[in-house]
């Protein structure tokens, strides 16, 4: 019968007027608005939800919220499919499709369950022990096996179609958790005028106030919660966020919160994000994250239908769902009696087992008064029921509670267990808080804080309502006073709650005589008491080692329900107290976070900013193939019709050598340098001399790092006495600017110089080739472009169509060449004008590939040679190094190693067959026939097809290069399994004397 497990009274948060249909493992069910997938399934009598990780044991719900270790499902289908989702955290929405995972062929009948029968072969450390050797088995046999066996859900293969956003927030006080202490702190801080954010993971504010029968002021807990939330909503300085989990606490009070924005909406609009990641920099963080109930370890304590007493209560009070109709309540403390009372309200009388000898707590008395028989000094030894709990083997404990004195079997359809409460200290711990052990509650609580973080309420170990409220109001007020002068204090209302007696220190039941059922501690990773015993027996002592060996607490739930029970058990065996055992480290995220939320909008084209030159669209129209140069998109080559890349590049490069080519060099870094000390500064920054550079002239310069390695090169020109224009490589533009700023601001602040990036202010167009002068003369008839009028390394300012243009006579291609610079906005116009005028000279655009070909042939070094390992001597730049003056990095050049004959220096290579292109990165060896390791002489840095000689040519950096010229060596590429006989030649392959650029 559908929804047969609903409570009698509708006092929860379910809207029975709105039915919601959903499917689970192909069957259709319905629940109601307000249900979670978990409560909807339970109300339909379904507890079996999945199979466990290691043994494939049938598992159901243990909890009701984030603490849930078992109930992980695969949601949705196709590209929206999402694995490992905790069913207790999924709000029911029309048409939701969920299925079990880690089972095949079905959750009822799972082949992998054989692991359970073989469980003696799967002890702690199983993976370490079994899959160690032989090594050759790893890739083909072990890894696929482990992957299959360990496979939980299945990640979708298609891109995620959903939208995720990032948001940055600042506030004075962030309150995490909206239970009594959280609401109290938020109210106190907000009323005092602080900017407050209140975050609640669940769909409703109120925390324990939604489930506990308490009175605050003259209201019920629930009413007070609603009233407080209404007050907070009315205040403009408060942001209330439900469905929002603060999962990470980082340095300087940076917290990160994930908000589930539209998963619960039936038809979210197209632009509503699915989730939103909030980076919140909070002045103060109040951790009011409450506490999580501890399970108890007993034989087969993992069957579907066995769950936490608090979860059973919340299912009844909030979700109007009965976890069973024949319950056993098993506890070591008073709080589980409130679950018993909820059952009684539904005319269900539970069997109550209490490990303690007695209790006179108020709830216990109330239950007794209702005539329920409480079996004190009792526990559960074992359970039966394959896919769902059917019966429990229970009995009385002996005096030391180390054995059962008698055993009997009783029928049941659920067991609600309670081992007391663990404060949720994760965030405090992430914030660097050194936790301390509180013996009163047998759990760790925050102690010495490192950041501006304060735990209140149950998260602070304050388990009574009075304490929680008092702490909340006090801390909220105190902290808000740091940010406002209002000094408005809110009074703590009186509150009433039942008095509790102390819990018993017993979290693990003895085994039934002669039997060894598994007593689980960590449900998600299938770690049982016997695994911890084994780890200790095998000599693991540090809790961090025990954790890794057994995998206790290492699952996705981060041991929310298992850490303390594990610690407690280790301390029992080791006969040490828990604080001596210590605790493992809590790390973010507190709950699993989807990759989509972390990535946010940084997908596709938004992954990185794209920089485009003003001429970009023209390149696109001309069919350019683009290549990324840092963030820039540069034309790589412009294929015509059926041309492949090689054809196009050869055509473009050959046309520069023969006619004239045009290349967009806007991406080059440009830095404007001004000030009376500018010449002196350049003189210190560059290896060559700069003091005497005449106005109107450019000079090539090389910069070093302090360790003597070449940092960057480029052409810098003197525009006026104290004004220079520096160019850098595209790749190093940003680094060079930082470098200059460093020396001006930190090292030589006495120099009066200013530097400013002008990369984006200028558009640069290279016009290269023997016909470039003729072309530009036509375009600029008023200026003298003759070799005398504008010699190599000269520059001239002019105008065209009313646009300012600066023409530099500089060359990267080794040909007669110019670079025309105009203000960026006019880059496209200038480009088109040159193209139009150039038609008569057979002008063609060339991309970065042809640009490379041209510079490689000429032996001009670039990024591949200047890779941070080369001193000027290595790459033929000795001539650039001044002997007279000092400059950055000079002292390093005198180090012996940098002038050794063994240094790898620059040479050219031509394959002997004049046909085979040498792959970049190939190793150069003397003899390719000797056994490995073959002594390596160096490597190939750049390769091209020489359009001048019509054969391949490469630049290489090899040991004692100068003396190797004329020798035959081998270029080997083990990656491509080739060995190419090569001749070593000069790196200046074309026009070694540089006549063309000066022609």
């Amino acid at each position, binding site marked *: 019968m559908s929804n047969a497990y609903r409570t009698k009274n509708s006092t929860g948060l379910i809207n029975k007027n709105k039915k919601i249909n959903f499917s689970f493992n192909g069957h259709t069910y319905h629940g109601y608005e307000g249900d979670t997938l978990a409560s909807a399934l339970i109300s339909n009598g379904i507890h079996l939800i999945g199979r466990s990780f290691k043994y494939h044991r049938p598992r159901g719900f243990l909890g009701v919220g984030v603490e849930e270790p078992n109930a992980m499902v695969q949601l949705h289908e196709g590209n929206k499919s999402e694995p490992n989702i905790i069913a207790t955290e999924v709000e029911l929405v029309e048409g939701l499709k969920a299925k079990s995972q880690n089972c095949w062929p079905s959750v009822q009948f799972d082949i992998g369950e054989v692991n359970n029968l073989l469980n003696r072969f799967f002890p702690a450390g199983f993976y370490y022990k079994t899959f160690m050797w032989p090594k050759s088995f790893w890739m083909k046999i072990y890894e696929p096996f482990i992957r299959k066996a360990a496979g939980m859900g299945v990640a979708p293969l298609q891109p995620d179609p959903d939208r995720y956003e990032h948001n940055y927030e600042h506030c004075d006080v962030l309150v995490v958790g909206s239970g009594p202490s959280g609401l109290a702190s938020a109210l106190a801080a907000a009323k005092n005028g602080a900017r407050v954010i209140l975050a609640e993971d669940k769909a409703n504010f109120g925390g324990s106030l939604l489930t506990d029968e308490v009175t605050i002021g003259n209201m019920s807990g629930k009413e007070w919660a609603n009233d407080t939330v209404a007050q907070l909503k009315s205040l403009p300085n408060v942001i209330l966020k439900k469905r929002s989990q603060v999962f990470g606490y*980082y*340095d*300087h*009070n*940076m917290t990160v919160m994930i908000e589930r924005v539209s998963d619960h909406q039936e038809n979210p609009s197209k632009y509503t994000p699915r989730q939103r990641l909030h*980076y919140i*920099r909070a002045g103060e963080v109040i951790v009011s994250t409450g506490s999580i109930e501890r399970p108890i370890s007993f034989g087969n304590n993992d069957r579907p239908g066995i769950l936490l007493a608090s979860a059973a209560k919340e299912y009844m009070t909030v979700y109007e769902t009965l976890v069973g109709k024949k319950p056993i309540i098993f506890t070591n403390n008073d709080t589980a009696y409130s679950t018993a009372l909820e059952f009684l309200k539904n005319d269900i009388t539970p069997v109550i087992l209490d490990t303690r000898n007695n209790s006179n707590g108020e709830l216990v008395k109330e239950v007794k008064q209702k005539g329920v028989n409480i079996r004190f000094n009792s526990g559960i030894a074992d359970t039966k029921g394959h896919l769902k709990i059917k019966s429990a083997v229970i009995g009385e404990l002996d005096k030391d509670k180390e054995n059962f004195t008698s055993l009997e079997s009783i029928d049941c359809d659920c067991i609600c267990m309670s081992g007391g409460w663990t404060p949720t200290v994760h965030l405090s711990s992430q914030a*660097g808080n050194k936790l301390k052990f509180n013996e009163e509650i047998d759990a760790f609580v925050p102690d010495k804080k*490192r950041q501006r973080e304060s735990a209140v309420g149950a998260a602070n170990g304050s388990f009574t309502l009075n304490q929680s409220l008092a702490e909340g109001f006090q801390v909220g007020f105190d902290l808000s006073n740091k940010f406002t002068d209002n000094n408005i204090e809110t009074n703590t209302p009186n509150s009433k709650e039942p008095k509790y007696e102390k819990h018993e220190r017993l979290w693990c039941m003895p085994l039934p005589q002669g039997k060894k059922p598994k007593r689980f501690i960590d449900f998600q990773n299938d770690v049982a008491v016997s695994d911890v015993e084994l780890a200790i027996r095998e000599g693991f002592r540090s809790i961090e080692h025990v954790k890794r060996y057994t995998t206790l607490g290492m699952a996705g739930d981060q041991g929310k329900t298992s850490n303390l029970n594990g610690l407690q058990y280790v301390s029992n065996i080791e006969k040490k107290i828990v604080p001596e055992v210590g605790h493992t480290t809590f790390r973010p995220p507190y709950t699993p976070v989807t990759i989509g939320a972390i990535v946010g909008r940084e997908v596709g084209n938004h992954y990185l900013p794209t920089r485009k030159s003003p001429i970009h669209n023209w390149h696109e129209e001309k069919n350019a193939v683009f290549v990324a140069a840092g963030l820039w998109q540069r034309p790589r080559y412009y294929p015509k019709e059926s041309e492949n890349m090689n054809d196009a590049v050869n055509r473009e490069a050959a046309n520069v050598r023969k006619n004239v080519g045009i290349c967009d060099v806007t991406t080059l870094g440009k830095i404007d340098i001004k000030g009376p000390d500018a010449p002196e500064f350049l003189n*210190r920054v560059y290896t060559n001399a700069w003091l005497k550079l005449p106005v109107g002239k450019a000079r090539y310069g090389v910069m070093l790092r*302090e*360790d003597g390695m070449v940092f960057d090169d480029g052409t810098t020109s003197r525009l006026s006495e104290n004004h220079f224009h520096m160019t850098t490589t595209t790749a190093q533009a*940003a680094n060079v*600017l*930082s470098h200059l*700023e*460093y020396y001006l*601001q*930190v*090292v030589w*602040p006495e120099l009066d110089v200013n530097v400013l990036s002008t990369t984006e202010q200028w558009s640069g167009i290279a016009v290269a080739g023997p016909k470039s002068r003729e072309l530009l003369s036509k375009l600029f008839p008023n200026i003298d472009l003759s070799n005398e009028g504008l010699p190599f390394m000269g520059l001239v300012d002019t105008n065209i169509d009313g646009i300012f243009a600066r023409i530099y006579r500089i060359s990267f291609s080794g040909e007669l060449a110019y670079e025309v610079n105009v203000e960026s906005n006019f880059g496209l116009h200038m480009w088109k004008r040159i193209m139009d005028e150039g038609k008569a000279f057979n002008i063609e655009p060339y991309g970065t590939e042809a640009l490379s070909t041209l510079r490689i042939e000429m032996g001009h070094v670039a990024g591949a040679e200047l890779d941070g390992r080369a001193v000027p001597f290595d790459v033929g730049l000795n001539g650039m190094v001044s002997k007279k003056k*000092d*400059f950055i990095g000079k*002292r*390093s050049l005198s*180090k012996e190693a940098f002038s050794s004959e063994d240094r790898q220096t620059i040479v050219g290579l031509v394959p002997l067959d004049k046909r085979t292109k040498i792959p970049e990165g190939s190793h150069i060896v003397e003899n390719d026939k000797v056994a490995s390791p073959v002594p390596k002489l160096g490597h190939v840095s750049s390769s091209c097809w020489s359009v001048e000689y019509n054969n391949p040519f490469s630049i290489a950096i090899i040991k004692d290069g100068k003396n190797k010229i004329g020798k035959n060596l081998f270029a080997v590429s083990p990656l491509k399994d080739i060995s190419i006989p090569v001749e070593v030649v000069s790196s200046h392959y074309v026009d070694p004397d540089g006549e063309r650029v000066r022609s």
Partner: protein
Amino acid sequence: MLEIKCPYCGKRSQNEFSYGGDATVKRPMLGEEISTEDWDNFVYFRDNPRGKHTELWHHVSGCRQWFKASRDTATHEIFDTCKMNEAFNE
């Protein structure tokens, strides 16, 4: 992510800054006669203290000023920041 107070712009997130290393290292004077050992110490060797460290930061995605910070390398607490020509308020 750290929150760093640029002496020119105020508090900003760490992702606007780049780190510049030990601020107490002094570059030798230009043209200074210096032993290889002293030079190598300047170029390569840095202390790596646990605790208080005086260091350089560069507000690259901001005002582009280099400045000094006094930071605890273990806890990341930043005690103070100041302009290059100033001293910490300690």
